[in-house]
């Protein structure tokens, strides 16, 4: 969920070059941390690694988990992310995933079922019409990517806290995990799941959520970075066992929230 908004810029030379540069950078992004902790050319110049990579990685991972706890403590569930007028929506809203746009999964609406698992009382699978029949709300908020860029969009759907109470989820559990049709997976903390602006979105800009933005369903959290917002969700489970995530397991901060 961190790829650059390649469709954001118009067709001009600079944009094409930028896009090409990003493509070149892709494999580097997928490197695991162990290959990544030298101070670039400086360590090459001196002929030795400045830090022992394995121990540096372990320390940095520990600090990152410490930062998870600090962020959980800092998170005020009553504070709302800013909302914006329709005129400020970023058009076109950037496509964003760990794969290219032509690899977006096709999810069949008729056979789609949202599966529920873990610490949930009512585990019956939900069809799309059933989800669409629930009370809906919408919001215009800023999506902030871990890369730094941001874009404003309009999402509509079911307030996640309403959904969780409807299915009898154990809201004293620590984590909620998500499995997606694009093989993406991630997990979030319970206070964020219960935040008033956390939506199980079924629409984008007033229309059915298009495949490129996560059809049939995306979890939208304006209090989290982009990679924490899973698309094409197939299964939701409530657990006390740390589920990790696609990017989180490679070194992105787990809390990943603002």
């Amino acid at each position, binding site marked *: 969920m961190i790829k650059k908004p390649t469709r954001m810029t118009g067709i001009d030379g600079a944009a094409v070059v930028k896009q090409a540069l990003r493509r070149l950078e892709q494999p580097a992004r997928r490197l695991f*941390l162990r290959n990544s*902790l030298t101070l*670039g050319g400086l360590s090459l110049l001196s002929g030795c690694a400045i830090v022992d990579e394995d121990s540096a990685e372990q320390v*940095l991972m520990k*600090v990152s988990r410490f930062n998870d706890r600090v962020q959980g403590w800092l998170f005020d569930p009553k504070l709302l992310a*800013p909302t914006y007028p329709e005129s400020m929506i970023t058009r076109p809203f950037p496509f964003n995933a760990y794969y290219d746009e032509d690899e977006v999964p096709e999810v069949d609406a008729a056979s789609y079922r949202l599966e529920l698992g873990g610490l949930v009382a009512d585990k019956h699978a939900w069809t799309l019409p059933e989800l669409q029949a629930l009370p809906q709300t919408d919001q215009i908020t800023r999506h902030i990517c871990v890369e730094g860029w941001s874009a404003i969009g309009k999402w509509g759907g079911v307030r996640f806290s309403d959904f969780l109470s409807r299915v009898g989820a154990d809201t004293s559990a620590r984590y909620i995990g998500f499995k997606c049709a694009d093989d993406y997976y991630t997990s979030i903390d319970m206070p964020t799941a219960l935040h008033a602006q956390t939506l199980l979105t079924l629409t984008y800009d007033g229309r059915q959520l298009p495949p490129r933005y996560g059809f049939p369903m995306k979890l939208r959290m304006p209090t989290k970075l982009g990679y924490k917002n899973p698309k094409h969700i197939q299964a939701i489970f409530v657990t006390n066992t740390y589920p990790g995530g696609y990017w989180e397991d490679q070194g992105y901060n787990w809390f990943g929230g*603002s």
Partner: protein
Amino acid sequence: MTDATHPIHPAWLRATHWINALAVLIMVTSGWRIYNASPLFGFQFAKGITLGGWLGGAIMWHFAAMWLLAANGLIYLVCNVASGRLAHKFFPLSPRAVAADLLAALRGRLSHADLRQYNAVQRAAYLFVVADALLLVLSGLVLWKSVQFPLLRELLGGYESARRVHFFAMTAMVAFVMVHLAMVALVPRTLLAMIRGR
């Protein structure tokens, strides 16, 4: 503190200075790698001078060294204020004195006989870089936690504006370091004083 038996710089100052230097080096080089993931302007930093290898690694470094920078900076500020060193070393300070010392420096006539005394340009530059570091921390807080610090976010003009503030405050910090290093090269005794205290 003008007694010759006392060090030019107290031990706490030397310690916080070098810890800060390390923290700033990590913050700036990892910050450049983070910038490269989504450049605000039409350039990227050469990969060889960035830290972290990839975005995730750079962010880990950045969000680890931030604790070092903040804790060390806090100790520096508390010691500086509580010991009276801030008032004693940095004031009085007037624009006229800065202009006069700057002119003298450019003509090569500024004396460095007594390293205990900061000239007006030094005073202004060091106070500036402390304020700049504070701005880096505050704008960084908005980028990290834009929802949790609404007042700070609005003061800096929103998330996107805070990105630019953070970038230009980094630029000012790097510019300071370059001038600072050039001055140390011109008056090498200052380096010894910052290491040994004498």
